């Protein structure tokens, strides 16, 4: 039995629906639908984000690497910023200041002239200081920096001097400064036979000049008691001593310790001129009073904690 009937097949081919076709509208719908289906569509923002994410995901190892490097750098910066050991910075600071003193720019001359005017005669001493043989001293000795502070206890002038330090105006000006201005001199430790520098006394305390200046400033502004309490909290136990010198004279001090407390003694030298004004005297008295308050606070703390 055949499953394809020729007669029926012929009849089917002659059927009246042989030429039947869909309407034009149907044809357009179908073709339009197909065309739109394969037409590239502009990606919306969400799809763009996903594509970007996919691209990032492909390079995820790169992102991870950069993140790790950034983390390491961040940790290094944080560790570096948390190194408060002053002795480390004092070394480099002293080194820088000493170098700056030698290379002090002439641009500071006008201000220096104003400060130095009454005592220009001491210029040769300053030159001697600049050419000090200690310039080439080994690093070990730099740690034993001599710091000389000359003060007449005038707060406003102390601020001025401090600002000059902050602006990298190396304090060679103080070498010849008269009272009542607050001066600070930093000189490297010289051999015992080295000549005295700029008529100022030095003492063997490894504290940078900026710290001394800051100490004087804090004493006057905040008061001796408050500063002493801060030092106690910081574990910086010491006794302050004011030593008045005639301007142009140099005092030299070895490292010393207080007999009672065995705390380190820090000497603040005060340079007085012959014609000291009355307001300068008042300022000096203020500094002395605050130093006294400072020391008393230290002694009190010693008394309560000596055991």
């Amino acid at each position, binding site marked *: *039995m055949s*499953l*394809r*009937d*020729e*007669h*029926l*097949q*012929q*009849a*089917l*081919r*002659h*059927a*009246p*629906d*042989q*030429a*039947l*076709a*869909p*309407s034009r509208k*149907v*044809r357009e*719908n*179908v*073709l339009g*639908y*197909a*065309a739109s*289906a*394969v*037409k*590239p569509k502009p990606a919306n923002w969400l799809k763009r984000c996903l594509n970007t994410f996919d691209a990032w995901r492909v390079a995820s190892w790169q992102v991870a690497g950069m993140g790790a490097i950034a983390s390491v750098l961040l940790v290094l910066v944080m560790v570096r910023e948390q190194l408060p050991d002053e002795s480390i910075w004092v070394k480099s600071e002293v080194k820088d200041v000493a170098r700056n003193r030698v290379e002090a720019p002439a641009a500071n001359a006008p201000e220096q002239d104003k400060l130095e005017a009454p005592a220009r005669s001491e210029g040769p001493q300053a030159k001697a200081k600049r050419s000090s043989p200690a310039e080439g001293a080994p690093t070990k000795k730099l740690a034993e920096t001599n710091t000389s502070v000359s003060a007449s206890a005038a707060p406003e002038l102390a601020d001025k001097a401090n600002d000059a330090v902050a602006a990298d105006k190396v304090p060679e000006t103080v070498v010849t400064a008269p009272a009542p201005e607050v001066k600070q001199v930093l000189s490297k430790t010289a051999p015992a036979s080295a000549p005295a520098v700029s008529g100022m006394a030095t003492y063997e305390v490894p504290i940078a000049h900026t710290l001394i200046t800051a100490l004087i400033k804090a004493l006057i502004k905040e008061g001796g008691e408050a500063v002493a309490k801060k030092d106690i909290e910081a574990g910086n136990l010491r006794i302050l001593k004011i030593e008045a010198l005639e301007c142009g004279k140099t005092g030299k001090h070895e490292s010393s310790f207080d007999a009672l407390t065995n705390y380190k003694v820090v000497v603040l030298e005060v340079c007085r001129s012959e014609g000291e004004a009355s307001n300068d005297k008042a300022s000096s008295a203020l500094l002395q009073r605050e130093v006294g308050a400072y020391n008393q606070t230290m002694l009190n703390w010693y008394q309560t904690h000596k055991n």
Partner: protein
Amino acid sequence: MSDVFADEDLMRQFCAGEAHAFQLLYARHEKPLYRYVRRLLGSAEALQVDDVFQDTWMKLVDARDSWQARDNASFKTWLYTLAHHRAIDVLRKSGREVSVDQGWQENGWENDEAEAPWALWPASHAEQPEQQAFWRKAGQQLLNCLDTLPVLQRAAFILHHDDGLSLEEITLVINTEFETVKSRLRYALSKLRTCMGAYLQPILEKESGF
């Protein structure tokens, strides 16, 4: 140009974004597919033909990626499968789906070929107007007879005789077994022969010139 490429080649081009390939495919299969849908739905569901036809092509467009995944898949078989299922859905919803078998008894045509009415039919390639008119009437009568067939028998007959699909391909289109397809086709032939013979025999006897 459209004859150069096989259906499958055109479909691959369309999947690659060539809308023109789809136009060629559509032009190639538009009328046969439309006829199939029309004949399968019958005169009772003639109003649904456009929808089914359009839905079939749109379904094909949407599912082009799934066709790509099927290796060696015949495009024509896939296209008619989509149309068939869509038409069956319409028939089911309308409640017009006819059961497969209705106790039909095969008549003796196959057993008595010499006595069969179509033995008197004129040649189909006859050029005489009267003969052409006969075949047109026969074609119309065949469509009427098709309406009386169960859906699967109707589908098997149309796919085999009009669209030229093999029994294996019909098996895929109507999603049934090979033997079932053969059975449905045999039933369809038997019924159509009876139907056509009952209609045409009086004409043949009257027009004894054939």
